[in-house]
């Protein structure tokens, strides 16, 4: 409006003072007003014509604003609208009135004056004070410690709670020497006239900054809200909750530790007593907890267990003593049993033609195997037997069988006669139905003929080959009445003859694998030239190796016999 009036009255330069004054009088919100012209536009006024009006109390004073000391045409407000070619606001600045010594934060709205040809001949400048604006905005505090800042195009503060920063510092101040990308980004966003929010450390405090442009002035306003202000209550509540939870957990911990300690006290006592009992003091008195819950039941059970343990230990002692007595008896029985078989080798040292060696190894203290031999003139009787079962009953049965064999062999009976007689004797009163397999043989040393009767026993080997029986006799002691049948081998002289019990070929290792006939034959095939003793030892060692630490599963009895032709016989041949 003012500009149009001025442009219509360019030919009345004196009236510019009146126009300027009228503008202030009619617009109480204006701080000052000036209508300024290009240097020498009016020759009458020379270089300067700036009709400058300013309030003076309730009055308005108007005067020439231009001088050598104030060449207004170099000022922002005069240049900006011309250069930008549109009306605009200047950056806020401190207006100093030297005459009155007053100062005020102001910003100017400037508009060019054109002559009829459209040429710019001057500028109308209207200033408003910013104090009221910044004061109004600064009073808006959403949070106790929040504050408002306003910046110009260059980021310079013209509203800030710290008055020393106003028009002296910008939002970028401090970032030149100490780069702060977050702050610079905020400043640039405000300069670009953007609206938004940023979270950053502002002046040493984590803050949320909400910013918005101030119309088309190029300025920006921002509310700086310390994070603690916004989330202070939330953080306080969170801290309280966390503290309460920690305290609760602590109380619960102490409570439960106490409870558990109390509850476990009897258990600890029981553990201690158990340790004492374990050390051998079975007679200690357990504490009475006088409780009926699980702990009381456990204590009661523990007491019962203690009593049972005491009883068990007593019984164990008794059993151990009994067992020791039995073992002692068994050792005696073993000695007796072993004394029943010939154990002196060579048995007939004067007879160089007889190479005989035997061995009996019971699986337990006493066994059910037997071997025996005796020389009756030129007849060498021998027998190898295996009583059914093991242990003491078998040993007693073996002892009886051994006694019968020696008696009958001493009488010079044939093997089948010995078998028949032994069978009759063993069947008598044999309620336990024990029996004994037995190979009974007699070698006529002068001819080398072997008469034998095999009573259900393993087939012996001759020169490593199993003998094939013509007749199949039953073991001794099973049934009486059916006669045993004997057989003959013409001449076994010079041959290796091995009689054994099933403790040899059925010896098992830990994998339950048997020693086997094949292995037996294989070993014997390499031992033809060995003595009877060597053969027996070699087989025992082979069995031991095969068992590889496994306990013997049966008695092992071996008898190896080699009859050599006598010298005169050899010479005859």
């Amino acid at each position, binding site marked *: 409006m003012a500009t149009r009036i001025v442009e219509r009255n360019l030919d009345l330069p004196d009236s510019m003072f009146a126009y300027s004054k009228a503008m202030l009088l009619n617009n109480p919100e204006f701080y000052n007003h000036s209508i300024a012209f290009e240097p020498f536009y009016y020759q009458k006024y020379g270089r300067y014509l700036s009709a400058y009006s300013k309030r003076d109390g309730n009055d308005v004073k108007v005067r020439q604003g231009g001088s*050598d*000391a*104030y*060449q*207004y045409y*170099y*000022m*922002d407000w005069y*240049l*900006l609208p011309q*250069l*930008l070619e549109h009306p*605009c606001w*200047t*950056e806020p*600045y*401190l207006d*100093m009135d030297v005459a009155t010594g007053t*100062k005020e934060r102001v910003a100017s709205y400037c508009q060019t004056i054109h002559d009829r040809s459209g040429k710019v001949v001057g500028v109308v400048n209207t200033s408003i004070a910013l104090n009221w604006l910044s004061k109004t905005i600064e009073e808006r505090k959403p949070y106790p410690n929040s504050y408002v800042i306003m910046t*110009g*195009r*260059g*980021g*310079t503060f013209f509203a800030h709670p710290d008055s020393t*920063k106003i*028009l*002296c*510092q*910008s*939002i*970028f*101040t*401090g970032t*030149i*020497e100490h780069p702060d990308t977050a702050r*610079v980004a905020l*400043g*640039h966003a405000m*300069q670009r006239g953007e609206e938004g929010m940023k979270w950053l450390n502002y002046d040493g405090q984590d803050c949320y900054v909400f910013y918005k442009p101030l119309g088309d002035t*190029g300025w920006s306003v921002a509310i700086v809200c310390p994070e603690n202000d916004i989330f202070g209550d939330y953080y306080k509540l969170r801290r309280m909750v966390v503290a309460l939870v920690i305290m609760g957990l602590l109380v619960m911990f102490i409570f439960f530790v106490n409870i558990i300690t109390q509850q476990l006290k009897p258990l600890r006592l029981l553990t201690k007593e158990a340790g004492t009992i374990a050390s051998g003091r079975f007679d200690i008195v357990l504490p009475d907890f006088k409780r009926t819950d699980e702990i009381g039941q456990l204590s009661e059970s523990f007491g019962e267990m203690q009593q049972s343990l005491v009883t068990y230990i007593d019984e164990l002692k008794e059993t151990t003593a009994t067992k020791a007595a039995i073992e002692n008896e068994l050792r005696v029985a073993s000695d007796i049993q072993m004394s029943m078989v010939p154990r002196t080798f060579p048995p007939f040292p004067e007879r160089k033609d007889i190479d005989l060696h035997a061995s009996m190894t019971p699986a337990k203290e006493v066994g059910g195997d037997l071997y025996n031999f005796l020389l009756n003139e030129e007849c060498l009787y021998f027998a190898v037997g295996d009583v059914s079962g093991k242990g003491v009953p078998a040993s007693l049965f073996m002892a009886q069988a051994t006694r019968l064999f020696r008696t009958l062999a001493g009488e010079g009976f044939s093997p089948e006669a010995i078998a028949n007689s032994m069978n009759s004797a063993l069947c008598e009163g044999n309620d336990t139905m024990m029996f004994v397999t037995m190979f009974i043989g007699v070698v006529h040393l002068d001819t080398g003929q072997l008469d034998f009767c095999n009573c259900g026993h393993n087939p012996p080997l001759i020169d490593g080959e199993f003998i094939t029986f013509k007749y199949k006799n039953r073991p001794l002691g099973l049934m009486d009445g059916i006669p045993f049948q004997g057989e003959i081998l013409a001449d076994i002289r010079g041959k290796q003859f091995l009689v054994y019990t099933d403790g040899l070929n059925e010896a098992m290792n830990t994998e339950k694998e048997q020693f086997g006939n094949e292995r037996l034959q294989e070993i014997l095939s390499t031992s033809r030239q060995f003595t009877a003793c060597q053969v027996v030892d070699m087989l025992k060692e082979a069995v031991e190796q095969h068992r590889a630490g496994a306990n013997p599963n049966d008695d092992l009895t071996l008898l190896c016999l080699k009859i050599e032709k006598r010298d005169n016989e050899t010479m005859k041949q």
Partner: protein
Amino acid sequence: MKSEVLKICSLITVITLASALAGKAQERFVFTPQWKAQSQFAGYYVAQENGFYKEAGIDVDIVHPTSTQQVMSRIRNNECQATTMSLCQALEVIDKGVPLVNILQTSMNCAIVIVSAHNVNPLTQKGARVGIWSSGNGQLAECMSKKDGLNYQWIIAANTVNLFVAGAVDAIVAMNYNEYYQLMQAGKQLSETNVYRFCDHGYNIQGEGIYMTYDYYVKHKDQARRFAEASRRGWEWAAAHPEETIRIVSKYVKANRSGTNSEIQTLMLKEVLQLQIDRESGKREFRLRPDMVKRASQLMVEGEMIKREISYAQRGHQPCQPDVGRGGASDDGHHGPCGDGFEHGNPNCGA
């Protein structure tokens, strides 16, 4: 009786001498730095605050000009006895018929830069609108524009930074210790691309020095020498005590309501002190270099800023002698330059 007379005579002598000394201390001297209060003039504030001027027997009054006032108008109007100016500005004044004497050269280098608002090399902005100081210190930029055929359209303004920030100009002429940092404080990105430094392109002409009119100098040689020495002392103290100096500067900034802050002033002081160090000698020399005068004069003639070259030493003067008193007049009876000569009363010249 005789002793009484002697005593009275002695007393009169002492009083007379004291009065003479007191009268000397009362010599009033108005010094006008060419711009508003800031670290650019730190050495003078220091000399004032630390009493160096007083010790030199000068009552110095530092009076800053208004934002649109050219300092020479103050000298012409006898509003001040000395002012600061750049070498080129001084040459222009001399060319216009005002003989000047340089009594102290503070800057050994050129601080002028051109900053592009469009992040391009200012040399590519032919015909661009370029802001330049209304206080009249941009002669070198104008010479360069003509010499390099850039034909800048000069926008003379009191505050070029505001025009730059508002996007009203394509570039501005700036001082590397002042507007340069103001632009940075306004969030502008400055780089080797958009900043043209005169000192790096054959225009390293000495900047600021203290000048007074030849007439005043001739009449007050001793005062000029003492003022120059005290000012130099102030600068040397400032260089040695930058933190204390900033505190002193802040006092003047506050008194003159300069609208700045200590960060900017600290950076400015650092840069101004750096400008005082001669690139070749690596020393703070405080002297006007004859070769610089010659170079500046040639550039100004080529740029049609002055009508003819102004030489360093005219008519047999010995301006580079330590004796200040001999800088203003020659033994051959000629008194001062007549528009075509350049006087130098710098006591440190040739040091």
